[in-house]
């Protein structure tokens, strides 16, 4: 069969027929096949016409699948993969990146049994048992402590990190080894009636007392395996472009090389990397910006540099986001600043002037005020068209703020999954029913013309763009309520947000986000048509896997 009918050269052309191809490209929204050459879409159309025009070979693997552009997760972290190196003991069932279903542990006994199983699999008696996902909120009035964990082992060290990653519970063997005892004076080490620490270690200074187990837990999330697992997790849910929002120190040459070498053409990974400049600009922001400009030139097709992350406040569920009047519904103090409001413009300016893309974490509406004031100041001093600086999370952003974002040329990446994972708590506890109904206002953002994406912040909530889209379309909470029906968006809008919307914010809209000739041949390969299923079942659309740069990556077989 002819290989060279168009475009010349000797590259192979492959035609992939599908059941339906939703290109999300308004110039040709529906097709039945795609032609791929040199890792890119050559053309879309139907099989006969594509073969007649371009020749090539036909690959029928996806003939009964529905193809969409590969999903783009615009806010995720590398530990999405790395965390699965440890035993999951969370309350809700989750599926790991290798396909294993981890049932939820709804009782202390279930947690202990899960840990016992994991303990039996460890061969080296000196290797600590590391686990994650524990959430004491589900057992009000009762607290897992060292004695529960001692039932798993009295000799092996056990370190169980809680789901919020700010607390851990350890067993007596670990306490013995690290001299955590009645003499331990650190705050965050609660003690029982006998004067002994309970085994709970609260916040990082206390968690670090766990020594090698603590270091292993956080250190192993930087391993090569963690990067590979990140790719596997993405492939399983149809995501072809991920982001690493400030989790990797890009001033470290070894880390840069790790990403660029692991993400080769056989990998399902394409990642927009964001340098966490908040805590990691050791020679100041000007020097950091210059380093990021140099690094940008070392971008590959699969690993993109030139992005910076800043953070202004904390989280709403943690009580650390900065809220406008009237503050928290529960009456707690207003949250914390991670950058001084007076300093935000000064920190943003060097990156802005250098032409870099800056995404700033702002959950609360007061933090968004500071962000908008700072950006306005920087734009007046150093006008830069089409900067696309993005507000990450936008959870309480008001219509007035969205109007300013539009006027300033900003993008919104809205934390849509929150409605499902914390919606009931927001309604009842953190912000009350009215503000909860207005949270994560994707409808308002779109109506006011702000470029929109929606995200999971994985591993804060599980990676899965269809789930994020479902959350934005339905705004359902676990108690079965619709939280803010008027902020719901349509399936088409949600699918745009997780493809082209995200691509735009990453400055990759000419390369990913739709099935359009010349773009990378990245597809989400689905078993059902998300435009045809009941929108209430959008998150249940089975994912076969992905096509990444024209290479097929079937998802992990799901195992119990």
């Amino acid at each position, binding site marked *: 069969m002819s290989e060279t009918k168009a475009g010349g050269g000797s590259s192979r052309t492959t035609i992939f027929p599908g059941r339906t191809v939703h290109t999300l490209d308004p110039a040709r929204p529906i097709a039945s096949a795609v032609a791929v050459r040199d890792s890119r879409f050559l053309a879309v159309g139907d099989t006969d016409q594509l073969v007649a025009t371009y020749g090539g070979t036909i690959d029928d693997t996806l003939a009964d699948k529905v193809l969409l552009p590969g999903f783009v997760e615009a806010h995720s972290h590398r530990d999405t993969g790395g965390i699965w190196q440890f035993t999951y003991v969370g309350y809700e069932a989750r599926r790991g990146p290798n396909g294993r279903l981890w049932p939820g542990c709804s009782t202390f006994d279930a947690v202990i049994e899960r840990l016992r199983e994991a303990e039996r699999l460890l061969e080296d008696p000196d290797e600590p048992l590391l686990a994650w996902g524990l959430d004491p909120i589900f057992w009000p009035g009762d607290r897992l402590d060292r004695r529960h964990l001692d039932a798993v082992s009295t000799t092996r060290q056990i370190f169980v990190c809680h789901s919020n990653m700010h607390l851990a519970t350890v067993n007596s063997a670990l306490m013995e080894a690290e001299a955590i005892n009645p003499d331990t004076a*650190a*705050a965050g080490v609660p003690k029982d009636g006998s004067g002994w620490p309970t085994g709970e270690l609260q916040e990082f200074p206390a968690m670090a007392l766990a020594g090698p187990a603590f*270091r292993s837990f956080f250190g192993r999330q930087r391993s090569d395996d963690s990067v590979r697992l990140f790719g596997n997790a993405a492939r399983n849910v149809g995501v072809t472009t991920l982001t690493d929002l400030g989790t990797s120190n890009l001033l470290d040459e070894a880390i840069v090389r790790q990403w660029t070498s692991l993400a080769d053409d056989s990998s399902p990974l394409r990642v927009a990397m964001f340098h966490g400049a908040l805590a990691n*600009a050791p020679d100041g922001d000007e020097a950091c910006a210059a380093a990021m400009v140099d690094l940008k030139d070392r971008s590959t097709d699969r690993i993109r540099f030139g992005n910076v992350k800043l953070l202004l406040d904390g989280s709403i569920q943690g009580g650390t986001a900065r809220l406008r009047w009237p503050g928290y519904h529960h009456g707690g103090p*207003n949250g914390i600043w*991670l950058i*001084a409001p*007076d*300093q935000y413009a000064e920190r943003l300016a060097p990156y802005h002037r250098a032409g870099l893309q800056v995404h700033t974490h702002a959950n609360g509406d007061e933090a968004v005020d500071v962000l908008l004031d700072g950006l306005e100041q920087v734009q007046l001093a150093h006008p830069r068209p089409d900067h696309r600086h993005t507000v990450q999370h936008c959870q309480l952003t008001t219509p007035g703020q969205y109007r300013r974002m539009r006027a300033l040329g900003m993008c919104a990446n809205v934390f849509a999954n929150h409605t499902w994972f914390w919606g009931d708590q927001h309604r009842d506890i953190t912000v009350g029913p009215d503000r909860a109904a207005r949270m994560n206002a994707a409808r308002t953002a779109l109506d006011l013309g702000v470029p929109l994406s929606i995200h999971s912040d994985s591993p804060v909530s599980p990676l899965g763009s269809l789930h994020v889209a479902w959350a934005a379309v339905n705004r359902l909470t676990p108690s079965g309520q619709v939280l803010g029906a008027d902020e719901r968006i349509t399936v088409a809008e949600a699918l745009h947000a997780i493809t082209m919307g995200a691509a735009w914010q990453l400055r990759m809209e000419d390369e990913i986000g739709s099935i359009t000739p010349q773009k990378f041949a990245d597809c989400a390969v689905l078993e059902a048509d998300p435009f045809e299923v009941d929108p209430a079942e959008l998150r249940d659309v089975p994912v076969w896997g992905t096509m990444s740069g024209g290479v097929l990556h079937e998802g992990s077989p799901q195992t119990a």
Partner: protein
Amino acid sequence: MATKDMRLPLTVVGGYLGAGKTTLLNRLLADPDGQRIAVLVNDFGEIDIDGRLLDSATDDVLRLANGCICCTMADGFAETLDTVRGFANRIDRVVVEVSGVGQPHKVAQWGHSPGFSPDGTVVLVDPLSVRDRASDRYVGETILTQVSEADLVVISRTDVAGAAELEATEIWLSGVTDATVLRAPVPTGVLLGPLLRAVAGSGPSSSRGPGTGAATTPASRSDPTRVSDPEHVTISRRLAGPVTRTSIDTWTRARPSGVVRAKGLIRVNDRPDDRTVLQVCGSSSTVTVDGPWDGGDDAVVAIALPGTPRAALVKWLNLLG
């Protein structure tokens, strides 16, 4: 010497933007009063080290000819403390810079990490702006918490603020914090206090009444407990032996106003084989056990603001027994 396996004292320095943290840290590095200080900063950008003083530099660590080092915390706090542990035999103490909106008293909890002991929370305030800032919509609460949780508050910019402003600031501070309040510049030896190993060898023998264990004033410049500023009041005492826990409690509660620093290496009679460390930093006192007793003197040293009556300090130290 009771210095074996001594933990490194860790002091945190915070305060809002413009409060003078960088000035203070640069001063500590330039004039460390004979102490080898590891200063941990968020970035090197504002650190101003005289080229003649610089001994060597890597991406994360600057080494100075006077024995001090300066590290960035870019790799994270736990990792930076690991780095510092690697220098432990070459430094005497650690001072950590906290960002302008950070909470120093929370960062101070890292002082409980293995190899370290918490040694106070110092917060700087700018007398020209702190009262306004404290009611700022965005950062008011942050600043009030910094100040109210501090052990020592240092009022900076005393060279530009007028006497009335300084006094008004002091009055305002007395309403929002229990911290001991000092005016800059504060000599390094006062701000950080003496080193525990100096305490262990405390006082020249000539100044001690043999067997009496009474508190005394250091008599000689060679005394390791001396502080470089003679206006501050320094008193030391060698104890006759282990003391009761009750006397420590009494001593803690009876701290006279004006005490900036006190340090002790002592034994308690219910744990005579352990080394008990007393540390007073302004308004806070900690009593910790950091290892087995390994000989040396039971001794305690106190430093107070100029004008503090010596008699009150002597009486205070004599409560231990």
